[in-house]
C-alpha cells in the first residue's frame, strides 16, 4: 500500500500537484510500479522543432518515407482544432507510435507505447495551427521509421 502511495506522490510532484487525488489513484492500483509508463517526456513534448523532438525520442535519424507506415489524414482540414489522424504499421514488433505536427508550437502531439498483443494501429485527433505536415514515427525492433503527409488547414485550431 505504502509503495503505491509513494508512487502516486512522485507522479504528483512531476506533474505539479493534485497529490491527494493521485495518492488515491495509486491506491486503486491503476498505476503500479511494475508496469508504469516512463515519466512524461517533457523535453520531447516541449520541443519547438522536428529535429529536437526526434532527438528527445532517441530517433535522430529515422528511415524516411517508410512504406511500412500507413498514415491516414484528411487532405484538407476545415477545422484545425480537430484533425483525425490514424497511424498503422505493417512492421513486425512495433513498440511505439508517435504523432507530430511540424508547424505547431510544440511539435510532438502523442507517443503511444504498444505492448505485445496490441495492434500496431492508433487513431486520435490533433490540433493544427496552420497548414503543416503530420508526421508518423514508428519504432519497431528498436529502429525508427517515419512518414509524413501534408494537411491543408483552412481555419487554425490553436486559436488566439
Amino acid at each position, binding site marked *: 500500500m505504502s509503495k503505491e502511495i509513494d508512487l502516486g506522490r512522485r507522479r504528483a510532484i512531476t506533474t505539479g500537484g493534485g497529490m491527494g487525488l493521485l495518492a488515491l489513484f495509486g491506491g486503486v492500483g*491503476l498505476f503500479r510500479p511494475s508496469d508504469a509508463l516512463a515519466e512524461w517526456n517533457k523535453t520531447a513534448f516541449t520541443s519547438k522543432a522536428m529535429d529536437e523532438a526526434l532527438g528527445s525520442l532517441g530517433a535522430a535519424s529515422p528511415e524516411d518515407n517508410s512504406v511500412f507506415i500507413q498514415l491516414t489524414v484528411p487532405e484538407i482540414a476545415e477545422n484545425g482544432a480537430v484533425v483525425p489522424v490514424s497511424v498503422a504499421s505493417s512492421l513486425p514488433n512495433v513498440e511505439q507510435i508517435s504523432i507530430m505536427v511540424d508547424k505547431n508550437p510544440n511539435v510532438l502531439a502523442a507517443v503511444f507505447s504498444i505492448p505485445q498483443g496490441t495492434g500496431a494501429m492508433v487513431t486520435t485527433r490533433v490540433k493544427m495551427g496552420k497548414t503543416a505536415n503530420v508526421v508518423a514515427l514508428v519504432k519497431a525492433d528498436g529502429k525508427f521509421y517515419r512518414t509524413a503527409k501534408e494537411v491543408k488547414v483552412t481555419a487554425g485550431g490553436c486559436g488566439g
Partner: protein
Amino acid sequence: MGKPMKIRAAVKEGVTEVKILMQHDMETGLRKEADGTLVPAWFITEVKVQYQGRAVLEAQFGQSISKNPYLMFHFNGGSAGEKVSISWVDNKGDSRSDEATITG
C-alpha cells in the same frame, strides 16, 4: 476529478477494439481570453488502458491533442463481459479512471 469518459469496447474474432472519448479542455497555454489574458496550459499528459491487470496501451499526450481527446486501438484477446479500465492524469495532477464491459 475529471469528467467521465465514454468508452466502447467490442470483441470480434478474438480482437477487442477500444474507442475512448475523454472529456478534457486540453488547453495549450497559448490561447488568450477576450481580454488578452493567457489561459494556462491544462492538458492530459498520460493515458493508460488495462485489461486483466496488464497494460494494453499507454500514451503520453502533448498540447497538440484535440479538446476531448479521442482514441481508438485494438488488442488481441478479450471476451464479452470482461472489463477494460482506462485512466488518465493531466499536467495539474487531476485524474480520472473509468471501466467498460467488453461487448460481443
